């Protein structure tokens, strides 16, 4: 009997050890990677047409930019519709980004230091907008625990960039809603561990196919004092059939 008890303790201890040491701590039977894959299922957009508002608050001033986007995997085409920026378009093809200014009828390739700048002066950098792959392809994940955010339980996951993948943030700390599998909060860190950006999801909406998608996100660049940007999706049509050639340099011109 005593021997059996020892065996049970030993097996139990081994399971716990393996689980902890390889970060395969089970959360309702899911690993950190599986959690993030379910997040990707919700948040990664294969194809969609989206209308949104970008509310930029900086130095006490508030600016609202409205735009619509066609999104298809790693490619997208966005056009601003608010009076001040009407006709300004962004085209993203893989990791390349172009901007079209209607007043000057000028096409600009965004590269170099511009990629670090805030998109239209927002807290989202152009570099952020280029990262459109599934997170589970870009990062290794580690389940760090559980926390309650706004009364809801979340998994706290530490994402560390996979070697060789083209990502901007070496580490991210992500809070995932345990019920809906969407990110509720995110902290983006530099290689030296400095907090660079903070993302908070204000509203999540359930769509027809049972998919949950964050429709109001607040991004805060921690290196710029007193600024924050809210991205509000006003309309989104998943699996939208985008006409061929719509997301191209020809259309941008």
């Amino acid at each position, binding site marked *: 009997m005593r021997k059996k008890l020892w065996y049970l303790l030993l097996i139990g201890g081994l399971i716990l050890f393996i689980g902890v040491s390889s970060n395969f701590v089970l959360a309702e039977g899911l690993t950190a990677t599986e959690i993030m894959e379910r997040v990707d299922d919700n948040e990664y957009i294969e194809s969609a047409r989206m209308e949104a508002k970008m509310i930029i608050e900086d130095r006490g001033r508030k600016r609202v930019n409205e735009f619509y986007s066609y999104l298809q995997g790693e490619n997208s085409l966005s056009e601003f519709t608010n009076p001040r920026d009407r006709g300004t378009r962004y085209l993203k093809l893989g990791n390349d980004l172009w901007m079209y200014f209607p007043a000057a009828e000028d096409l600009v390739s965004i590269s*170099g*230091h511009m990629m670090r700048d805030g998109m239209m002066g927002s807290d989202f950098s152009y570099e952020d907008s280029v990262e459109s792959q599934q997170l589970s392809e870009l990062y290794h994940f580690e389940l760090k625990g559980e926390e309650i955010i706004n009364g809801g339980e979340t998994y706290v996951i530490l994402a560390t960039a996979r070697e060789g993948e083209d*990502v901007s*943030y070496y580490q991210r700390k992500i809070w995932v809603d345990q019920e809906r599998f969407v990110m509720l909060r995110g902290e983006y860190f530099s290689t*030296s561990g*400095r907090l660079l950006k903070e993302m908070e999801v204000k509203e999540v909406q359930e769509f027809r196919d049972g998919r949950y998608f964050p429709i109001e996100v607040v991004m805060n660049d921690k290196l*710029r004092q007193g*600024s924050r940007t809210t991205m509000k999706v006003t309309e989104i049509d998943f699996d939208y059939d985008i006409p061929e050639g719509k997301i191209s340099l020809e259309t941008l011109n």
Partner: protein
Amino acid sequence: MYLFKIAARNLFRRKKRMFIISSILALAVITFLLIDSFMIGMMDLSFGNVIDFETPHIEIGREEFFIQADDGQELPLEETFIPEKYMLEEIKASDGFLAVTPVLDFSASFIAGREEFPVLVRSIETDSFGGVFKNEDYLVEGEFVEAGDSGVVIGNQMAEFFDLEIGDFYTLRFQDKNGYFSTIEGEVRGITTTPHPQMNMGVVFVARDYAVSRLGVEEDNISQLMVRVENRDLALSSAQSLANKFKNTDYQVRSYRDASEMLVSLEAWGYLETYFILALILIVGAIGIINTIVLSALERIEEIGMMKAMGLKVNQIVRVFLLEAAGIGVIGGLVGCIISALINHFFVNYGLDLDLYLDAESMGLPISGRLYGVWNASSFLLIFILVILIALIASIIPSYWAARKDPVDAIHHR
């Protein structure tokens, strides 16, 4: 001598006309010499500032690094290298060698408060940097960068733009060698005011040993080896000799002129512009001389007939007119050179406040403040000879026209 006497007498017969034409030539001389002095002074100062603050006499780095830097792209951290011993030995053995210092340049965004600005960060070896560059001499506040220190030294324009003082906090945001966002943070340690405007706004100095830990590169990696030699002439020959030695390697050796292609082009354009202005004024002068010779031939048509009747040959009469034209050239050239020398004396000693007259920075020139002229004896000699030559050439055809008059027709001119 006889012909020379006639020419000299004729020259002063129509003093007003001679004075006007000589004045035009003198104006050409003055314009050329002053622009020349201004141009040489400006280029001298520009190259001097480039050498003292930006790129010294010689720089050595990977070819791809320079390609991307010249293209205005982000400086590639993957093109950094660890200098090999033989390289340093070759550099130290080059003609006129004075000092060498390694630097690790990279692109970043300088952030302070709510503002952000793209800058070039120059991470330096504090011990050897002063031997090659003069930035430290232009420190107006605080201290210069020290080894292991997280502080930075910035230019006065950047300090004004960000409203920064010594001890204020800064952050540098950049992408490390692996493409991840990284930061360097600390306090502003010093502020410099150099005569090179770009260094006052777009460049930040940080200790290399501090920066390297955040860049994702190996500890000893650098982007360029910066070399100072005794003078600019030696720099060109030493750069060529080092380039031959590193011919079959990945490294490129550049002189300060190679690194300042824009400045070299600007210099060429500047000279072209000077010679164009000179040509325009000389054309006016030449037309004046043709006019003078034709008029003086018409006035002296009977004299010419008489001279021919007395046995003077066409060539001798032509020589009289040519000597007269050359005289105008000599007077114009001499007066121009003397007035230019007087004006240039003030220009050389007191200079011009550039900021009052032109925005050198917007023209892409690395200069600000006072610009001084330069004495260039060869330019004085060149323009003096050129003015006489132009006067001579311009008078050849009208002189022949005058000398070929039939003596009988000439005498019965009236």
